[in-house]
């Protein structure tokens, strides 16, 4: 699975995710990627999210929307919401994977609970990195 999230200079966020799914998956099996609110989500009032990992776990937790809801309804920061869902909730049901997220205030997060995640970020006039583990 691959994905991107962005905050543009006009203050809008967006998310995009694309995948081949899981190796040797059954025909007809669909994971979280195309399910809005699970593997892909964007709302200028909170954040944009693109996820990767055990699709069934991300679907059951509605991961992307859960992060959005914690930010909007209990004023959690992006870091608190993203890390809480991945490190606590996802791990608790035996799911593995990660996500990238950017908020309308420019904060961003890339948590994962497995060995690594191919990832990178670029902040205008700021950090630019690529990482694996």
């Amino acid at each position: 699975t691959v994905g991107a999230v962005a905050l543009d200079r006009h203050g809008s966020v967006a998310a995009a995710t694309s995948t081949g799914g899981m190796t040797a998956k059954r025909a007809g099996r669909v994971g979280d990627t195309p399910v809005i609110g699970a593997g892909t989500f964007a709302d200028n009032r909170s954040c944009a999210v693109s996820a990767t990992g055990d699709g069934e776990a991300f679907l059951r937790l509605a991961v992307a929307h859960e992060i959005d809801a914690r930010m909007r309804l209990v004023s959690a920061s992006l870091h608190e919401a993203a890390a809480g869902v991945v490190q606590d909730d996802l791990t608790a049901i035996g799911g593995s994977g990660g996500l990238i997220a950017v908020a309308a205030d420019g904060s961003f997060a890339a948590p994962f609970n497995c060995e690594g995640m191919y990832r990178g970020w670029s902040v205008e006039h700021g950090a630019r990195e690529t990482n694996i583990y």
Partner: protein
Amino acid sequence: GGFTLLIHGGAGVLPRDAMTPEAEARYHAALDRVLAVGETVLAADGSALDAVEATVCALEDEPLFNAGRGAVFTRDGRHEMDAAIMEGRDRMAGAVAGICGPRNPIRAARAVMQRTEHVLMMGEGAQAVATEAGLPFEEDAYFFTQARWNSLQETLEMERTGRLNDDPSRRHG
């Protein structure tokens, strides 16, 4: 303020003991190239929506990652790809599931968002929207990579011999 862009190429990373310096350099170079695509859009005052679409197209075109060219195989040795795109201003969204044909599934997802009243479309209907949008299609061979084919055979063999592990690196391509 300025822009912020993040990308991921999936959580199925090679285990550290299998990652050679050459392979690691290849992955970092690919991620670097992809970041540059999104930066170009955003630095020209482009929208976040255009930036994430262009960036994911570049990731789909990169056979190192599990999407588009280089996608993993179903157990029948075929490709069924899924994609979604969403923008935060008015929560417009488009998604496709179970398709094989459009070179860039993310562009098919955007076509669903912009050319229909739907959010999620699957199979032939989704492909018909991509055709109407004039998106480029590819033959099955374009999406094939030997590495994914080998991974499929290994996985099926592990199933047959009862040795299937739950290694995320293998499962997530």
